[in-house]
């Protein structure tokens, strides 16, 4: 187990270094001088040069890359060109929107998908199963931003139950903040729930064909108990893997969904930073998101290997 964990963490490390180098390199070839951008077109050449020096832009690419990575590891992400505040502060104030949003969506999609998957698998081949599977096909095909627009129309514009967009912040109380996140979370969760319930169903059906399930049935256990105690536990392993992968979709999904609801989250931050050419913010947020994806998948893999020793060999 330990050697497996070490081998996996080495791969994670290489992935992170390579990914950060790619992001750094891509933004390096983008035209436009950040110093010039910050000072505006009327600044003198001397002033721009002085700022370049102050920002360290006159140093070689390699030096700047190492300095950037070193800074990130110690929590210093540099200063935003446009906001003129440390990037870490920007990230922190946006995380309080994006993180609860992604968490709500994840919880919601799991809460919907697992019961639906179990329901469908237990009634395999019946009309109920066919109906549920057709509904999940539809769920996968619905673009989450379109669903979001419909939710806004129904619950915000017509019924006026929740705000149509914006975020009041957590200082005004938990409920106003939560109610601003409910519709975006539902919009994000729906397609994920559709995929996850299909995975749950097919994982369960795979397990239900195993010998130990037949044994459990043969010794007279009621089928509900067999399903919950024996089948579901084993089926949860592939479900967990998909859940880890979906985390990456959720993070990406927040970019678009936050735009639909004008939520000041991480996705909107990176989006605005790109259009304002605030490259340091783009670099930091993208690498942070990539690191989160890689680490979450690493933890899922570890949990998976811990639960199932057969998977450690590879």
């Amino acid at each position: 187990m330990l050697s497996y964990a070490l081998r996996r963490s080495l791969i994670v490390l290489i992935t992170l270094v390579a990914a950060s180098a790619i992001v750094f390199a891509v933004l390096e070839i983008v035209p436009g001088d950040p110093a010039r951008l910050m000072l505006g077109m009327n600044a003198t050449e001397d002033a721009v040069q002085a700022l370049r020096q102050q920002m360290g832009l006159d140093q070689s690419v390699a030096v700047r890359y190492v300095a950037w990575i070193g800074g990130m590891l110690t929590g210093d992400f540099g200063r935003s060109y446009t906001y003129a505040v440390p990037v870490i502060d920007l990230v922190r104030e946006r995380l309080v929107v994006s993180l609860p949003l992604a968490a709500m969506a994840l919880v919601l999609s799991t809460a919907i998908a697992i019961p639906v998957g179990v329901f469908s698998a237990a009634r395999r081949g019946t009309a109920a199963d066919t109906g549920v599977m057709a509904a999940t096909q539809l769920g996968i095909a619905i673009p989450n931003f379109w669903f979001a627009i419909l939710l806004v129309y129904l619950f915000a514009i017509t019924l006026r139950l929740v705000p149509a967009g914006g975020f009041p912040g957590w200082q005004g109380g938990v409920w106003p903040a939560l109610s601003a996140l409910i519709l975006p979370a539902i919009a994000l969760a729906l397609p994920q729930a559709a995929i996850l319930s299909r995975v749950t169903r097919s994982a369960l059906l795979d397990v239900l064909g195993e010998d130990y399930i037949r044994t459990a049935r043969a010794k007279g256990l009621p089928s509900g108990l067999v399903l919950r105690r024996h089948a579901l536990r084993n089926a949860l392993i592939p479900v967990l893997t998909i859940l880890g992968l979906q985390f990456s979709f959720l993070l990406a999904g927040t970019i678009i969904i936050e735009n639909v609801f004008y939520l000041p989250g991480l996705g909107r931050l990176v989006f605005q930073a790109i259009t304002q050419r605030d490259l340091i913010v783009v670099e930091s947020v993208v690498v942070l998101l990539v690191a989160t994806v890689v680490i979450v998948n690493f933890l899922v893999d570890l949990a998976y290997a811990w639960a199932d020793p057969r998977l450690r060999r590879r």
Partner: protein
Amino acid sequence: MAQGELIATEHEDWRHFLRKALGNRSFLAGATITLFVVAVALVSFVWTPYDVTKLVIADRLQAPSSAHWFGTDHFGRDILSMTMVGSRNSIAVALIAVGIGMALGVPLGTFAAARRGLTDEVLMRASDIVFAFPALLSAVMITAIFGPGAVNAIIAIGIFNVPVFARVARGAALALWPREFILAARASGKGAGLITLQHILPNIANLLLVQGTIQFSLGILAEAGLSYVGLGTQPPAPSWGRMLFEAQTMMAIAPHMAIVPGLAIIVTVLGLNLLGDGLRDVLDPRLRRQR
């Protein structure tokens, strides 16, 4: 004689395929929907109910009527016509992105499978790295940096198709290499390149076709998302994503604007997904999961 036999078997194969395909509900529904969408896109080249480039402000924001089946937008353009023309964009972007993924990914994957060892390891770790980037995030980054537009959207979506096809091709090729007919080909003195071309590729083509259908539908969704945030197809060219963005700003006064472009995306993606599921069942029963 040998030649004749070969043709006869291929003919048989085709008939066998057709018989099985027509008996598969998923395939039938998916193929019908997909053909319909493609037909609409083709028709839009020669005919649309109204000219999508002409703005008729007097007719703006009309609700659906017999003159405008799906109503008009805030510039008085016919929504049915725009949706028809928009389908071209979605199909073109997603299809070319799949082409890029296949053209680069399949050679990489089959190469990794043929060489094994370090080559394989390096290529697969490289594909892990690409997978670490949430696709949409990178697509946003690429299109924003190199400028918004359909071409950059194609490249951005295409890049993420490369490791997908590389993995599918590698996995399938790896399973084929120890098989006897490959061994026979090696014994006859064929090199790895020739074997891949003559024996591996024809045998993994089905799998690639199924994956291609799935990536096609994901590409449609991705293009819509990019156009919605303003990074994909640029106005005045109509695109489903852009139409939805404009519909959102008019939501309170003209909710009908949001319905049709959204339904167009759903129908297209649904059709392709059903087609992919059906193809998988028909082409390779061994891959069929318990359903």
